[in-house]
């Protein structure tokens, strides 16, 4: 069992959990993830390592599905059954020169650890974060501290630039002010944002989020096509060259269990009503 040390709601329906997991924090680095399972009946879900402090690891999630809603209902001091990690290959952190780290929605949560590591490696780091509206932005203060500069975007203009991180990225590319960029968010956002660096020298990384089961290279559920070759996101990734990704295939595979996910959530809410424990 792994104890929840701290729990905060940090944006609309978005939560940060600090979980005690010394085996994860010992070597966990930017770009890597953990797989958690809440209880005996739970599924295994991958979540990117957002930060580590001592023996605690931070995960951030939006409570949209059955598992994330159940997780959000847990309190500080309670425990989850399993957390395995760190999994995946760490981000390619080295001295690139000028870097940008871009987060969309909950993907913003992946940036602090990455920005800090890039800074420590001697890079100049610009953070660009985007969300549908102000209420969905997260970790602004932390990122302002971790990055040299932070640009905020909202789709509806409720805060910062009225538009998308892609707009800012395009300007940076046009100014030739960039050597490497990380884009982390929903698949469609990563796909569209990465167009900005197509046919440039800017190394463009994305962190793919396919469906996983074990997360250790054993099942192949997370297979993605990169430059025409099948790769396992859990061990070969999750970060890949954005311009080599078969995005449509990724998004199709992400939708494999849409029906079951709905069913699972309905079953969860029905059960909640019956047992009366979680209201």
């Amino acid at each position, binding site marked *: 069992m792994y104890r929840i040390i701290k729990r905060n709601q940090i944006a609309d329906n978005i939560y940060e959990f600090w979980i005690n997991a010394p*085996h994860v924090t010992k070597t966990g680095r930017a770009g890597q993830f953990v797989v958690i399972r809440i209880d005996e009946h*739970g599924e295994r879900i991958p979540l990117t390592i957002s930060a580590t402090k001592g023996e605690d690891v931070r995960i951030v999630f939006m409570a949209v599905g059955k598992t994330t809603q159940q997780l959000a209902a847990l309190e500080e001091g309670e425990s989850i059954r399993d957390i395995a990690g760190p999994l995946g290959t760490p981000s390619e952190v080295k001295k690139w020169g000028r870097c940008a780290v871009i987060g969309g929605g909950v993907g913003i949560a992946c940036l602090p650890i990455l920005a800090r590591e890039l800074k420590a490696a001697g890079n100049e780091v610009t953070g660009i974060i985007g969300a549908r509206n102000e209420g969905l932005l997260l970790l602004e203060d932390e990122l302002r501290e971790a990055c040299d500069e932070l640009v905020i975007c909202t789709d509806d203009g409720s805060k910062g630039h009225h538009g998308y991180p892609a707009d800012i990225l395009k300007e940076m590319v046009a100014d030739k002010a960039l050597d490497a960029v990380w884009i982390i968010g929903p698949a469609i956002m990563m796909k569209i944002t990465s167009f900005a660096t197509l046919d440039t020298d800017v190394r463009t990384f994305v962190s793919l989020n396919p469906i996983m*089961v074990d997360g250790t290279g*054993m099942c192949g559920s997370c297979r993605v096509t990169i430059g025409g070759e099948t790769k396992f996101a859990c061990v070969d990734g999750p970060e890949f060259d954005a311009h080599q990704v078969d995005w449509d295939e990724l998004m199709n595979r992400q939708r*494999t*269990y849409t029906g079951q996910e709905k*069913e*699972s959530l309905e079953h969860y809410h029905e059960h909640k009503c019956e047992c009366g424990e979680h209201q």
Partner: protein
Amino acid sequence: MNRRLPEERLQDFKEVATGLPEQTAVLEALRCMGCPRPLCVDGCPVSIDIPGFINAIADEDFRTAARIIKQDNMLPAICGRVCPQEAQCQGTCILGKKDKPVRIGALERFVADWERENGVEPPQTAPATGKRVAVVGSGPAGITAASECLRAGHQVTIFESLHEAGGVLTYGIPAFRMPKDIVRFEIEQVLALGAELHLNHIVGRSVPVDELLAYDAVFIGTGAGLPYFMSIEGENFSGVYSANEFLTRVNLMHADRFPEFDTPVIRGSRVAVIGGGNVAMDSARVARRLGAQVYLIYRRREEDLPARQEEVENAIQEGVEFVCCANPTRILGGPEVQGIECTRMDMCECDESGRPVPRPCTGEGSTFTLDVDVVIEAIGQGPNPLLAGLIPGLKRGRRGNIEVDEDGRTSIPHVFAGGDIATGAATVIWAMGSAKKAAAAINQMLADTDSE
């Protein structure tokens, strides 16, 4: 071994083979000739004193029978169920030459089941040596190595990357062939000898390599966890599974009980399983239990199927349709699976191993299509690459397996390996046999360093 009726067993995941009643076991044991030079023991990868334990059954002294088996094998309930006895101990039984061999596997299972119901007697362990042994992986190899090192008095720490111990016994082999409470029970027996088990620990990541190598000895039994795919068109459509994924979803995550358990699986109305080994049979039989019509596509003839005969029979009884001499060339549909296109295969002259080589037919009628909505590829697994690649100086073979000598020694002096990670995909009992040898070498090495 008696089996439950097919129509009944398709309704659940309970064990198919029912085991021998006591009377029958004793009568079967009495058939053993007690050969002075028993060939059955030569056929056993872990060298159990087979005539010895059978003789004890004949005397109705089941406690002694259990004690004899446990000297060489801490997992008898597992081996009694999944060993290919027909190719091992029973295959060499002298009675088999004229009549049927003694049903050694069924007797082993009988003894293990008897002991489980009547109280387990833990084996003796040597006094503590203070030496530390790390075991990576808690599958058949890891558990066997751990038990041997524990009995020699060493302090053993087992690391498992999943949330449950057992490796392929837990995630791979379905409950109707290997009930999970029995797997847990036998593993618990080994842990009770004093091992420390760390779940959710990925060695090389959660446990850094230098920390691992700081142990006095290391045993790597990480298995053949990397699924192979055919590399045909349409392979990444939704509804195409590796057998590993399909079986893990059901066996480890209990997707058959979705939504009570959170993990889903596409049940499919018509399922194609590709392959002819035990894993293919397991996948096909699980798919039948999930309610699908199942085709098993195999590129050679039915008589060439590499799966155990018993499992092929079970699959046929349970209504799996065999499509032999056929090779899948393309998965149709997108983004969901709608069908699978196959080419008929001709059997040509035999290769070096004596098996006929399948060649694709040409011309009219040489291809056909099956309407299916799920495809499960069970064409084999490679060694799990995660850890072996992270240890500097660890020599690996062409396929990524860890190179070992006869006693499981790797290119690093205090690092040993056994099971599928060393031998390539094989059986539970071969993994245990190689792990037992490696553990003997570890125990020898640690004893030698002590006397120096």
